[in-house]
């Protein structure tokens, strides 16, 4: 179905996007007028040694493209530079915090998938009925609750008042970690659940109105079979596309949730690094999130022909 050529083409697109994104991340620093050293050392005592160290780390004497190549070259070898606030390699700082964020994102992702798909499907299958309305209203309101508000409420109710869940920390071992991450994942998932549910709903409603669904029904397939094999199966495309777009949002939104729940992941690290003017860390995290986004979407892109055989033939549109 998918030819090797197409996959190669998509990988090429991925690399191009990554390249452009890395340019953006790297050269964004050049948007700031003035001396790069004083930018990087804002708020710190600019001892000559510190200046020399930062200048050396960034190769500030070199022409910009050379700086860029060095930077990219370092990253390809896992060297993201050194954190100014932690006096430590950025890769170490991030590496220590990544598991928490990944755990959070995976758990939230699972909730988003399960709850979002179910809610969307239920609404779609009851289109125009009370249940649909209820789900829609619920989604509209839930979707309007920013994750930081959600976090505060969840902590106040379930951690403090009821004491069912811990209000901080990420726990030890698998089960404990899951237990610790329940509330943060919910806070993170809510807004995205709403998006997925809405896409699922409209995508399924779209399919429900298709003639092929009616054909399948007319041939005596049970409603369950029709919905599973024809409605839901065909509705996956847009859901998957939107899911891909959500990945980066999930990673960024985790900064809010992590901050609220006192979790130490790369999200809270990002905020802290912005606060502490630790630009090397900011740069690295931004690049990481962008890369995750691009890679996930490339994977979805490559899966596309499996989801929709027409796309392999270039027939495209649904």
């Amino acid at each position, binding site marked *: 179905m998918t030819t090797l050529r197409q996959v190669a083409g998509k990988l090429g697109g991925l690399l191009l996007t990554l390249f452009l994104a890395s340019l953006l991340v790297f050269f964004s620093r050049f948007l700031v007028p003035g001396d790069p050293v004083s930018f990087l050392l804002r708020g710190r005592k600019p001892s000559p*040694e510190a200046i020399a160290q930062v200048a050396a780390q960034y190769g500030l004497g070199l022409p910009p493209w050379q700086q860029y190549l060095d930077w990219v070259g370092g990253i390809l070898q896992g060297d993201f530079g050194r954190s100014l606030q932690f*006096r*430590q390699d950025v890769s170490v700082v991030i590496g220590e915090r990544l598991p*928490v964020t990944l755990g959070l994102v995976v758990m939230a992702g699972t909730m988003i998938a399960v709850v979002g798909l179910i809610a969307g499907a239920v609404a779609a299958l009851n289109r125009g009925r009370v249940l649909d309305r209820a789900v829609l209203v619920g989604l509209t309101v839930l979707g309007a609750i920013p994750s930081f508000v959600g976090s505060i409420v969840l902590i106040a109710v379930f951690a*403090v008042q009821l004491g069912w869940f811990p*209000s901080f*920390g990420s726990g030890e071992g698998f089960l404990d970690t899951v237990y610790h991450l329940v509330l943060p994942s919910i806070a993170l998932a809510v807004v995205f659940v709403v998006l997925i549910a809405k896409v699922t709903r409209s995508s399924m409603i779209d399919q429900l109105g298709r003639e092929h669904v009616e054909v399948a029904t007319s041939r005596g397939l049970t409603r369950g079979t029709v919905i599973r094999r024809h409605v839901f199966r065909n509705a996956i495309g847009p859901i998957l596309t939107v899911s891909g777009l959500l990945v980066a949002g999930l990673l960024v939104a985790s900064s809010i949730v992590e901050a609220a729940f006192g979790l*130490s992941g790369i999200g*809270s690290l990002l905020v802290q690094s912005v606060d502490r*003017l630790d630009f090397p860390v900011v740069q690295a995290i931004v690049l990481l999130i962008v890369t995750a986004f691009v890679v996930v979407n490339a994977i979805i892109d490559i899966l596309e022909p499996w989801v929709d055989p027409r796309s392999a033939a270039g027939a495209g549109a649904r």
Partner: protein
Amino acid sequence: PDSAAAPDWEYTTETGAPAGDIDSYSWVSYAEPYSLDYAYAFDYADNQVLANVCESLLRLNPDYTLSPGLAESFDHPTPETWVYTIRDGVTFHDGTPLTAADVVASMNRHLDPAVGSSWYSVYQNVVSIEQTGDRQVTVTEASADSQFNLAMGGSAGVIESGATLTEKGADYGNSTGGVNCTGPFSLEEWKSGERITLARYDDYWDETLRAKAAEVEFVFMNDANARVNALKSGDVDGGWMLPYEGIAQLTSAGTGEVYFGLNTAVSSLIVSNLEGPLGDERVRRAMLMALDREGIVEAASKGYGEVTNALTTESVWVGASEQGLADAFEGLEEYPYDVEAAKQLIDEAGATGEEIVLATAPISSDFAVIAQATAAAAESIGLKATIETVTPNAYTALFSDPAAREGVDLFYTVWYLSSPDPLEMYSVLRTGEFSNYGGWSNAEFDQVVNEAIATDDPAARSEKTAEAQRIANEQLPWLPLSTAPMSVFLGERISGVAPSIAFLYYPWAAAIGAR
């Protein structure tokens, strides 16, 4: 909730001897240390952990007295030299013995510009640090300095294994490199962003401070609510510096107790521009009188504090004579809240309608209170006030960079002293001193302080210092606002800590055991 009722609180020095050892307990900190490198340990978060792992030449006790630490004794043979005799039988956590070479290596780092030590100011007078005997280290200074030795109870006097310093290099003190010191606890694990675990060091030299807990776990929670909740629910056993909003809750929660202990910090407004209207002493006095300092204490620290007219707390007057202490605190100018009188002063000074700029930053709620209250006070006496909100980092720069203070008339600080001597405060206000932010200059004051610094006898010194305090109280180079006690929460499982700001340097965690 009735906001008018001021809370009851009193100072405590002890929290009851522990019943025995405990396997482990947890402690909450509002932030993660950036580094456990003593050269950079300059903040509550760093020091409260470091104090239990790394020891200094001298030991700063909870009552702010100094006693021998890794130096079993010190001498002051000439006004310019300090000679330390290094204690025998002390080992680092890796088992290697403490030597004079380690001391020299550790202390010399403060002088190394490549390190950029935060404690350089302590060493600014130092000419050399040398091993002058098997167990002897001599520090030579350019001029007489009574203060250097006092600082050896703090981070400036921390001793680390020289071999470790060399080995770890740039990674020394961070979560990968770690530290290798002599304290009652060793650094067991540093899980970035989450917690630091300390383990009892069994070969610790000082039996009296042998750790009662096999393990202490520090968890970091930036969020005040999370901190209070964790303490209240018993998820965490204790913590320093409780959020004021939560103290009432913690007191009534029944899962532990809140204690208030010695503090050296004074909240004050630094007058950073004497060229402007505040250059006139009458305007400074008027400003202080226009401030409802009782109200500020109520709003900023929810009543856990007292208005003060001095820039030091009595707690740092450790070696003071009775006379000295009386001179220092009795009969100080009171500056009561009196807008009318203040207005009159402004009129006299002809400053009505002049403008002042106060800088603030969103660091904690007291910053907002002070900024708003100060602006309101200035307006109430006919001055124009502008609040300039800057980032916390830019705010930090106010303390280090004269350019950052350009155009700023007033800013707020909570200034704490790291050594048991009020001179630490007043030496800062001498003409030309780095931290004399407004460039205030008073010849009499300078002379008194310089004399005090050259005086070795604490009692005699205190009397000189008291003179300095009186001058500052009259002239108001900084406007003193209030003091607040150091708060600590102990859950029902633990006991034994002495509530005091000395937790920044004293191995307080070792004293905590099962209740």
